[in-house]
């Protein structure tokens, strides 16, 4: 992948060796010997290389780039010896499925090579003595340190506790975006993001991790890439498939979802797993935040029945502005950081309510019912709903084959067949692939 050459570099041969039908793009960079530097006329260049370390470090840099940018292939060759004007001093090639990764990877590699590779350059001038040159602004350090990254906050948090924390964030939307930005910046060492959705245009006004060029991309993947770029010292993982959440090992769950069914499911799951949960929700101008410590009072203490989503407004249907979701999400992250850093926060004993229309705040004491089963961990998890009895748009699949139905990738509809058996099977399969689709119980015969 990384090599040194004492003879001129053949770009064609190297490009050919990176050919790959999986790749949608190749980006190739040449560093050329130019005829001037700092006002002096250059006539040739000499490279001296500490070979053993250069080969090791070059290999490391390419491996980092391959991992960071999801590359199919990466190659770099650095010249050694005496070079004439116009010769290729360094060749870098990167292949990826999408062009963005290849562009970023080549930039990363040339920048890292300039910082880290033990290579020295002697310029031979027309009218002056030859000189060993280097980029004057790089001579202070090899790379920035973790300490420098957190220097403006380390007096206020327990940085080690944050670094060792494993946090699961469910939902990378209106609340998830500000939560992820704050947790990543603060240095939470391990962040897992779960979201089955893709970025849509109508999200962009409030979901700050995304941009126009990311519409259509999976939110879990796009958001994990963005926060990894923000903080290279943490470990980030994005999951967009349906997974059994109980198999993920974490210290804290953060609920940034937007519907009651999921919120209650996460709430019950956390009580079953004895996992602390910080939950937030927003409706137009109001938001609330509560932290659940299993055993100290839960939603089921107040109501054993899960309220239906039709009772509540949803941001997608009723509207919300980014400033509101960003505010609540940031406060939710602040509660998380306090909890991880000190073991306590302000929303375990009281639920926090904020109304941005008049900036009024309420803190309501949380209620614990004696003998509550959920508090004790005796939880019956409601299986993810596949069948509905109505109240949704219907997609009649009686005249469609299974393959045709799967290919349609239906969304937010209830499949309907004769008796509800085939539609249930297909709905389950589509749900596994991340689609919000249900089956009409009993089929046409129920209508």
């Amino acid at each position, binding site marked *: 992948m990384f090599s040194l050459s004492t003879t001129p570099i053949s770009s064609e041969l190297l490009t050919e060796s990176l050919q790959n039908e999986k790749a949608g793009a190749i980006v190739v960079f040449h560093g050329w010997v130019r005829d001037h530097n700092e006002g002096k006329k250059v006539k040739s260049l000499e490279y001296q290389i500490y070979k*053993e370390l250069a080969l090791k470090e070059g290999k490391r840099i390419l491996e980092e780039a391959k991992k960071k940018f999801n590359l199919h292939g990466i190659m770099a060759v650095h010249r050694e010896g005496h070079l004439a004007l116009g010769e290729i001093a*360094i060749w870098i090639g990167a292949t990826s499925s999408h062009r963005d990764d290849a562009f970023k990877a080549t930039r990363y590699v040339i920048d890292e090579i300039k910082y880290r590779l033990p*290579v020295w350059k002697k310029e031979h001038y027309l009218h002056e003595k030859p000189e*060993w040159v280097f980029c004057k602004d790089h001579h*202070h350090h090899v790379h920035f340190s973790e300490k420098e990254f957190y220097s403006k906050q380390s007096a206020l948090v327990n940085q080690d506790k944050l670094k060792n924390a494993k946090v699961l964030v469910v939902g990378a939307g209106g609340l998830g975006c500000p939560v992820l930005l704050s947790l990543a910046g603060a240095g939470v060492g391990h962040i897992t993001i779960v979201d089955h959705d893709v970025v849509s245009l109508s999200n962009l006004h409030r979901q700050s991790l995304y941009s126009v060029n990311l519409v259509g991309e999976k939110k879990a993947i796009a958001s994990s890439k963005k926060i990894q770029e923000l903080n290279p010292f943490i470990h980030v993982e994005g999951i967009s498939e349906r997974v059994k959440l109980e198999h993920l090992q974490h210290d804290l769950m953060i609920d940034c979802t937007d519907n009651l069914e999921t919120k209650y499911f996460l709430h019950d799951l956390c009580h079953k797993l004895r996992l602390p949960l910080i939950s937030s929700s927003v409706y137009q101008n109001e938001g609330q935040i509560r932290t659940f410590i299993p055993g100290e009072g839960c939603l089921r203490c107040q109501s054993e029945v899960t309220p239906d989503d039709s009772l509540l407004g949803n941001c997608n249907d009723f509207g919300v502005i980014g400033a509101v979701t960003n505010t609540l999400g940031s406060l939710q992250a602040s509660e998380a950081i306090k909890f991880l850093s000190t073991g306590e926060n302000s929303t375990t004993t009281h639920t926090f309510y904020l109304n941005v229309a008049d900036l009024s705040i309420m803190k309501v004491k949380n209620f614990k019912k004696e003998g509550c089963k959920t508090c004790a961990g005796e939880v019956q998890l409601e299986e993810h709903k596949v069948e509905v009895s109505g109240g949704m748009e219907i997609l009649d699949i009686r005249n469609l084959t299974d393959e045709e139905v799967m290919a349609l990738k239906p969304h937010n509809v209830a499949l309907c067949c004769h008796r509800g058996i085939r539609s249930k099977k297909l709905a389950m399969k589509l749900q596994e692939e991340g689609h919000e689709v249900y089956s009409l119980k009993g089929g046409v015969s129920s209508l």
Partner: protein
Amino acid sequence: MSTINVHYFASLREASGLSHEEMSFEGTYKELYLSLVQKYHFNLPPEMIMVAVDDEFSSMDEVIKPQGKVVFIPPVAGG
């Protein structure tokens, strides 16, 4: 006393006239470098120098490892 093999590159090689030499020294790599500055009149202060030991980056404040290969790395200019 630790016997080590010290390698020079670029301007350090030119100032010392050597690509490498064996020597004995006790202390940190920074202290070793400072003694070499005295001997060869290197024009770069230790803050601008990195050190590699046995072909891996190390720190100038580390105590010298016996029998090691030591390379002082002046500011680099690859690419």
